[in-house]
């Protein structure tokens, strides 16, 4: 395959060398849409956004608009948001409740289960020609609801969602489980941040995969202090005594920065400026200890689930999707999570913290966007493209047999407590990316 040979010189994960071409090249971007986005499991939305029959949320899979919808009988579907007749977007609302999706162009209408139910002048114009059963909305090949999050893929031969996340489940659960250790139990706060960033989608994806190195980016927010107790950007005390781990599943492409609290330390005080919140988290963590045994000590941070979904498993607890919008632009969607049964004061406190931390108005992330913007821009030139990026940090330091006082963890893990950072997770991401780009089908990706 021509593309394969091409990538050989571009992505050398073993040496930690990656060409700028994969970020700025139009042909590679086009190939990504087929090789990566048409095959992988992608995040669609949260069940709490489609509670009732007829509820829908318009979302995105790669470049394309899709409708997440609960049909009249309660089943969840994901459809391509495009009419079968001439392609008109059948739903241009962001969310709502409906009996059917009527196309504004010539009026074909589709039931909430995707069936073509209405065709104007059907009898006279088409006679017996039109077989409606063949012309329903295009539906994803597979869909899975996992702890209230909805995921889908266009590829029928893709593995099940649980096989797709594999050992990463432990880390994804750190976002989706309640803080006190109960399975599930989180909800999305109303409102999805949506904004455009002028950079390739892989800049934010790899940054979230495990970039603990970019402290300089955020020094200004650390100086002014927006943390829950008014200091730095995240001033939860427990973080200071933790062991920091870059966790990667290179064979799957998923990763997270996790932290492990000491096995013998008492619960560290956190959220001291807000007694109700401090009390809530202390009670949750006592409960978590009882429920999970020694693995209570594992907490999550930012991560990336291949290809473009980034769970952030600590406060601010969020899930971001980096939608490709051409090689040089990304549309970010971000959902914000809280424990569904947290007291209102706690939810309100966290919501304020989330808004001042994250997204275009967040004091922290504003500086990320500036860096991704101009890193991308300065990599587009003819000369720039000839010089690859360096991903050598922490090469050869990971272990598949991580253990801490009897607690073992899945994944290839690099301890970065002392080193502060490695690029282990980023290498894992690009290893999988290259496999997707080279593979002819899922058979070669298992």
């Amino acid at each position, binding site marked *: 395959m021509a593309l394969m040979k091409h990538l050989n010189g571009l992505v050398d994960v073993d040496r930690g060398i990656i060409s700028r071409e994969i970020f700025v090249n139009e042909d590679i971007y086009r190939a990504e849409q087929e090789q990566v986005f048409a095959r992988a499991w992608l995040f669609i939305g949260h069940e709490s956004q489609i509670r009732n029959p007829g509820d829908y949320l318009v979302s995105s899979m790669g470049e394309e608009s899709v409708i997440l919808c609960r049909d009249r009988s309660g089943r969840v579907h994901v459809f391509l948001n495009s009419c079968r007749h001439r392609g008109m977007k059948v739903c*241009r*609302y*962001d*969310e*709502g409740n409906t009996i059917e999706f009527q196309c504004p162009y010539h009026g074909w209408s589709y039931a909430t289960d995707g069936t073509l139910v209405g065709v104007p002048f059907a009898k006279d114009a088409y006679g017996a020609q039109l077989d409606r059963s063949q012309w329903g909305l295009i539906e994803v090949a597979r869909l899975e609801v996992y702890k209230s999050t909805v995921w889908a893929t266009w590829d029928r031969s893709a593995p099940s969602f649980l096989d797709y996340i594999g050992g990463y489940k432990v880390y994804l659960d750190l976002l989706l489980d309640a803080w006190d250790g109960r399975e599930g139990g989180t909800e999305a*706060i*109303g*409102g*999805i*941040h*949506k*904004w*455009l*960033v*002028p950079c390739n989608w892989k800049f934010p994806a790899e940054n979230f995969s495990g970039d603990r190195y970019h402290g300089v*980016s955020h*020094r*200004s*927010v650390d*100086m*002014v*202090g*927006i943390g829950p107790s008014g200091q730095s950007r995240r001033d939860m005390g427990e973080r200071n005594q933790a062991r920091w781990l870059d966790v990667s599943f290179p064979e799957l492409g998923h990763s997270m920065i996790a932290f492990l609290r000491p096995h013998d330390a008492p619960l560290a005080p956190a959220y001291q400026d807000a007694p109700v919140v401090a009390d809530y988290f202390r009670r949750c963590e006592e409960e978590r200890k009882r429920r999970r045994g020694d693995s209570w000590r594992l907490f999550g941070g930012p991560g990336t689930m291949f290809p473009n979904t980034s769970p952030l498993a600590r406060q601010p607890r969020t899930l971001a999707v980096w939608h490709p919008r051409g090689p040089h632009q990304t*549309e970010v969607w971000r959902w*914000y999570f809280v424990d569904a049964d947290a007291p209102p004061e706690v939810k*309100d406190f966290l*919501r*304020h913290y*989330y*808004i*001042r931390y994250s*997204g*275009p*108005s967040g*004091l922290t*992330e*504003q*500086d990320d*966007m*500036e*860096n991704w*913007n*101009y890193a991308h821009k300065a990599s587009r030139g003819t000369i720039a493209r000839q010089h690859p990026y360096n991903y050598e940090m922490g090469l050869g330091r990971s272990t598949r047999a991580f253990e801490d006082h009897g607690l073992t963890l899945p994944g290839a893990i690099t301890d970065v407590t002392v080193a502060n950072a490695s690029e282990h997770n980023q290498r894992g991401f690009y290893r999988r990316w290259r496999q997707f780009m080279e593979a002819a089908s899922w058979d070669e990706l298992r």
Partner: protein
Amino acid sequence: MSDVERLLLRQEVEEFLYREAELLDERRYEEWLELLTDDVRYFMPMRRNVPHDETEREFTREGVDISWFDEGKDTLTRRVRQILTGIHWAEEPPSRICHMISNVQVLGAGPAGPSGTEIAVKSRFLVYRNRVETETDVLVGKREDLLRRVNGGFKLARRRIVLDQSVLLAKNLTFFF
């Protein structure tokens, strides 16, 4: 209120809003903060595409949902301090920002709020930002303000900013409206 009083009030309100815009455009952020009451509410919802007869769902809700801004003076002050660190890369080098404020309407004046007279004012904004080389954002929308009379002058007690965009077309919101 007589016609003359109404005109004078309108004049006074416009002068306040233009002076505020001037401080922002001249990057005199600390002086700008002094124009805000200590209990100021600064709110900017996100907007959804919804059917024309379901407008109650168009905006994210203050105090409930995730929005672009939903904060008071403490966070606004930290935003200013961050810009003034000189290492807030999203505003370093500083952007060139211009606030065009127009369509000023004084909607009503009366003794409201905890401390004296508050005046409801509506206006339009066009905020132009240009930074580094060619990066340019134009953000247009409406503002609904509550101005409070303090020591003979005005202070801003509340601002609701309604941006006429759904997906935000700017990469960040490092400036004030």
